[in-house]
């Protein structure tokens, strides 16, 4: 499994597709509905999935563990950990759940990349 993360609008998806020679049809785009298609190679916008989990009382990493085999997948997530503490309680809890989820994925991942202004840095 590979984790690619970075701030908003940094070009994470383009970076991952280019880096791992993948095409847009390999990508599942998460939205705030709790769905996850693990038949796709790339799970993009993981923060949307986590947001839904948080808002609906699930711990995202536990849901990921039971949804299926994550090996071989490329997870792409927005890093939301370095800004101000959100005023909104749901946003606050979401931010913390994102941290726990990315810690879990980064620990298991064979590769971790961080994207900065469209360019990547391999952290693991």
């Amino acid at each position, binding site marked *: 499994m590979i984790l690619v993360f970075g*701030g*908003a609008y940094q*070009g994470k998806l383009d970076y991952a597709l280019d880096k791992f020679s993948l095409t847009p049809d390999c990508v599942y785009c998460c939205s705030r509905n709790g769905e996850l298609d693990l038949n796709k190679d790339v799970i993009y916008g993981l923060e949307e999935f986590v947001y839904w989990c948080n808002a609906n009382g699930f711990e995202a990493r536990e849901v990921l563990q039971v949804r299926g085999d994550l090996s071989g997948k490329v997870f792409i997530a*927005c890093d*939301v950990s370095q800004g101000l503490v*959100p005023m909104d309680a749901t946003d606050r809890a*979401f931010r913390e759940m994102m941290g726990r989820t990315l810690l879990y994925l980064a620990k298991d991942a064979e590769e971790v990349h961080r994207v900065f*202004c*469209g360019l990547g840095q391999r952290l693991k």
Partner: protein
Amino acid sequence: MNIFISGGCKNGKSYHAQELARDMAKELGVPLYYLATMIPVDDEDRARIQRHLREREGWGFETIEQGRSILDCFKPGALTYEGNPVDPNGVFLFDSVTALLSNEMFPYGEDMDLDCGQRLADDLLEFAKITGNTVFVSDYIYSEARTFDESTETYRKTLAFLDRTLARECDQVVEVTFGMKYLYK
């Protein structure tokens, strides 16, 4: 060489940019310019500008004040703060992309221009091309969990677009974190 530097607030970006620009100008034997994008609107801004001018004393910078329409500093008759004409072959420290976008998107006392991104990207690339030796400084403001209002979100999205454009075209890209530098290219 064109260089793009970004990172968090008060992480040492400007200091590193000053060093790079100064060394480059020295090596090439050309004038050294500080392109200041801040447009002062109150005493706090004016005090900050005076502090920045003092901090750059002795570095050999001439200051160009250009908060908007950045290519205007190359027009005939344009002068530095010190009263000299601007040599496009000099080395420029462009501080900052963040303030430029803010001035252009939210001009003081005028209507917002939320669609200025492409125009500014073109201007910045033209600036890089004309000078060939500019150190661009921007700010990394993309790891927030808060939900912003639409115009703030447009600002963030547009700054990221300008950052990616510059990072793609510049010869060197540096992230500064608490004085430490990571070279992306």
